[in-house]
């Protein structure tokens, strides 16, 4: 078990390094200059000074080496667009905000998704099933940039229950969390439904039935627990992407999260921010996947965490 974890951590670091390297190469290949702007073209001498300041005048392999060196000491550099902010600061300030929204959305999506999916499976081909499936399909097909303004219009303007936008109290986080949760909720519900249908056909459910266990007990301790496994493996990457922020939701609700930097840094060719956000996301992703793998053990004791070496 311990060796497994050590090996796992090593692979995680290797993955992050590989992603960082690939991103660096791809980023340098896209055309466009971070210092090209909409107003005046900068005179050559000014550009030289600016490039020298950020080591962009050096050959690309040297830039790569310098970047990797800083990365090892957890220094992700300074944003080229916002020259007085470091990438570390941008992540430190934005990530917690995004994480709150993402976490709330995830909780809403997981709870209601599992309930909705289970309920429709238990009422297979009945009205409730069709109703829940329709809701799920609507949830998947409405993009959140449509849903978010809709929520604002009805729940912040016409019926002012919540603030229109911006960040502050927990009230501000309600609408964005809901807007963000709808699509994953629907997806989880669909997954859960088919997985549950599969489980309900199993022999042990029949056994439980014939033992005379109550329906709730069967569904809870035999049904959901088994059916949720495939959903959990799907939740991992979803969770990672939700807690690292979403451009559209943060833009519409004016939330000071990290999501916008994933998109805007590419538009601005803000190299250190592109690198920083990518590394941050991949770190969160591999960590979440690691946690998910660990959690399988808790959900399903049949799964043992062993590496090949351990087995011998």
């Amino acid at each position: 078990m311990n060796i497994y974890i050590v090996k796992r951590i090593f692979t995680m670091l290797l993955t992050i390094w590989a992603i960082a390297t690939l991103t660096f190469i791809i980023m340098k290949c896209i055309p466009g200059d971070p210092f090209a702007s909409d107003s005046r073209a900068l005179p050559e001498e000014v550009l030289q000074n600016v490039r020298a300041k950020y080591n962009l005048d050096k050959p690309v392999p040297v830039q790569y080496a310098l970047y990797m060196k800083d990365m090892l000491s957890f220094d992700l550099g300074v944003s080229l667009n916002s020259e007085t902010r470091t990438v570390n600061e941008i992540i430190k300030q934005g990530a917690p905000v995004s994480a709150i929204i993402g976490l709330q959305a995830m909780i809403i999506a997981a709870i209601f998704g599992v309930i909705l999916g289970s309920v429709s499976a238990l009422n297979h081909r009945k009205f409730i099933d069709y109703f829940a499936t329709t809701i799920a399909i609507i949830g998947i097909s409405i993009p959140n940039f449509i849903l978010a303004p809709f929520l604002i219009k009805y729940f912040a303007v016409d019926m002012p229950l919540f603030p229109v936008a911006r960040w502050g109290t927990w009230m501000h986080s309600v609408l964005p969390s809901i807007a963000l949760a709808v699509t994953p909720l629907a997806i989880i519900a669909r997954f859960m439904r088919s997985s549950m249908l599969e489980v309900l056909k199993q022999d042990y459910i029949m056994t439980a039935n014939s033992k005379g266990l109550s329906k709730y007990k069967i569904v809870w301790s035999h049904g959901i627990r088994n059916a949720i496994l495939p959903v959990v493996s799907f939740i991992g990457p979803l969770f990672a992407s939700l807690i690292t922020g979403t451009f559209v939701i943060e833009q519409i609700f004016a939330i000071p999260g990290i999501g916008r930097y994933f998109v805007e840094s590419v538009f601005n060719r803000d190299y250190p921010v592109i690198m920083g956000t990518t590394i941050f996301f991949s770190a969160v992703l591999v960590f979440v996947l690691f946690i998910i793998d660990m959690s399988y053990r808790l959900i399903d004791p049949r799964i043992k965490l062993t590496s090949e070496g351990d087995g011998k």
Partner: protein
Amino acid sequence: MKKKSTALVVLLFSILLLAACSSGEDSKKESQNDQSITVNVMTEPPSLDPALATDNKSGWILDHLFEGLYMRDKDGQPVLGAAEDVDISEDRTVYTFTIRDDAKWADGSPLTAGDFEYAWKRVLNPETGSKMAFYLYYIKNAKAYNNGEVEADEVGVEAKDDKTLVVELDSPVGYFEEMLTFWSYYPVKQDAVEKDKNWSANADTYVGNGPFSLAKWKHDDSVLVEKNDEYFASDEVTLKEIEFAMVDDANTYQQMFNAGEFDMIMEIPSSMIETMKDDDRLKTEPYFGTYMYMFNVEKEPFTNAKIRRAFAMSLNREELTKYITKAGEEPAFAMIPPGVTTDSGDFRDGAEPYFEENAAQAKVLLEEGMKEEGWNTLPTVELIYNTDENHKSIAEAVQEMIRKNLDVEVKLLNQEWKTFLDTTAQGNYQIARLGWTGIVLDPVVMLDAYLGDSPDNETNWLNEDFDRLIEEAKVESDLEKRIKMLHEAESILMQEMPFIPVYYYSKTYLTQDRIEDVAYYRNIYPNLKWVKVK
């Protein structure tokens, strides 16, 4: 069991409702607070360091936190700011400023001539890597220092004593006073800058000398400034606080304005402009900039001036501004927008129209041009623009007008912003969209985009007479003569037409009735220094 859970749900729901109601009341109370307003700056200002800021939005906040030797009055005219007096040499190359006795930093320490010298040399220091350094190149040896050729003390700015600043220019600059209102020329406080490299990113370490001082900067959320009592004209300032909020989504800030959460928003979407046409809260202000399409004059068919002219004549600008852009833009028939005041009125009024829209004549001109080049059919024409809904609608309308009036099929292509800049910089285009604005209200800053050696001139167009006239106008100290030369230069440009002018920009604002005395300017965002809440 069941009853209990129902009760719990009811309880939770009522807590939620209560919380909603109480928070609603809070925000209303806040907005009624005397003399504090919330405006929308839309996005995080990239930098509030006067040496590093490059964009209008940072500039907007900076204009409230600092004040240069000159500042703008309510009408936008440059008037003395931190300087109480100026002595200009006869050849207009040496300016001797006397700093006001009551000029102070927000921390109460005196503002000295040395602060200006330090700040300007900091902008020019190659290590600062300031992108705006070239705006200071008018100063003697400034460019050489920025290039690392001479030492800092050879730059033509020197504090003779705490109150006297001597500035030496390479040659007279007609708009230097206005230039001095620009943020790159603001002073910075040496102690503050040297103590903390990131002094400008936090309110605690930030020191300015303007009508307001930085109170709080919540990154990606808002910048809060409050009245600076040390400011020498603080009795002119009524506002206690301005919050610059960062809400980027047009639908959202429009809803927030309607809900009374914002006192001022800008860049009003055209759908909203239409519904608010008769509302006096909507303001449309002319902006010193020109929307245009530039030609690559080395790519056929635009190697021919007559063909270029034919394209320019085939548009219907009235229709474009009235039905497509809708924000009160003015059709453009030249390079320089209205707004340049000369001794004989507006620069625009002093010039004859350079061309007119006429579909029939355009068609004739196109045929003449093709004959000159010996073409039976016109080579295919492609127009590129950067990806954006507004640019797209304009380009599509233009495509249709050219199809109808010239019977020419124009292909449209859009590219993501930085890719687009790269493409045009390399000259890989035939027609490309371009917007050009001037940081000072002077014809030179518009026209010099088309100088043969300007890095901004991506058309490959070069005209020696034009270049000579601009260079001469730049150093001409007789203002009347200077304007005449600039008219002549513009006329050469419009004869040759390396570009099609489409419209002069405008800016749209929505302000609540409760605030008054916003000073709208033609080339920067409005100043809120004199604003009062009724």
